[in-house]
């Protein structure tokens, strides 16, 4: 494929963000940094889904003077993946809030953020 297009660059950035996020989740010791790794991963996945919906030279899926009803099929990007990502972002903030409040609870128990301290939950 063509790497020198907006879609190619966005897909590449998305995959690199997924790898960086996974690296952060697997190697960091601090609980808050692990959660930051999750948000980076989330951003990368959303970017890939939106980039797959894009087609060269097309515009946003909103009908107005520029994009009329009759020629909309040839002028707009795919709206379904955009609707899915809209949902995914809002769920992402809910999941992040749950993870952070659980971190606060764990901190209250052991007074530390290091993951090595929580050995009794290891199996």
């Amino acid at each position, binding site marked *: 494929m063509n790497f020198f297009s907006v879609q190619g660059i966005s897909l590449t950035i998305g995959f690199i963000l997924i790898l960086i996020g996974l690296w952060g989740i697997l190697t960091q010791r601090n609980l808050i940094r692990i959660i930051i790794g999750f948000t980076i991963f989330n951003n990368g996945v959303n970017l890939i889904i939106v980039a797959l919906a894009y087609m060269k030279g097309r515009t946003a899926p909103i009908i107005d003077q520029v994009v009329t009803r009759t020629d909309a099929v040839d002028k707009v990007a795919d709206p379904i993946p955009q609707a899915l990502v809209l949902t995914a972002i809002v769920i992402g903030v809910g999941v992040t809030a749950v993870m952070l*409040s659980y971190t606060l609870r764990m901190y209250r128990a052991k007074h530390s953020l290091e993951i090595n301290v929580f050995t009794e939950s290891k199996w």
Partner: protein
Amino acid sequence: MYKKLFVLLLLAVLGWSFFTLLQTHQERQSLNPLSKHYVEKGPDEVGAPNLVTAIVVTYRGFDTLGEVTILFVSAAIVGLFLKTENRRRKYKIRSTSEILHAAQRLLFPVMILFGIYIFMNGHLTPGGGFQGGAVIATAMILVLLTNPESPISHRAFNLLESVSGFSYIIIGVLGVLLAGGFLDNHILPLGKFGNLFSAGAIPLIYSFVGLKVGSELSSIILNLNDVQKDDK
């Protein structure tokens, strides 16, 4: 050390498979049949110029209902985790500066108005219930930053959240009774294409979604702020 090497190996394998995916990827030249139907028939069937809103609210209304439920459950879990016995504060909080107070008095009504504007115009312009709700929650953050002791009642937010969620379900059931199916927007007349009061029940549904999302996100923030007040 071995663990880091193992992780690096895993990432290398993943990166290689991503690279082959990228190399063989071909850019699509036309929409797939389902999107084509939504783009061609959407303006006539739903009457909303913003096709993303048409999909989120009407074609995939069940998805949105499930999403709002997930957000509600996560707000409830945050409240459960952060529950503390005594709500009495133990230390004095330093009062904030005059600049923040003046800015809050000036900006708070404008921010609430902007949030309402975003979710009322969700079917015409980019935006909608989720974005408008987030703007309202940001206004609540501004109030709590100015005065962490603000007497904002949790009960009012819980009431607003339950009332808007209940109305959302009622509109969905009305769709079954009066129109084609659950969350169908034809219970109100479609109106003139592109007007504020058009697209059937979409502005109404998105307003309730906006109020529900705004009160859920605000209750997460309020719970975190209460923890701040409580124990040291």
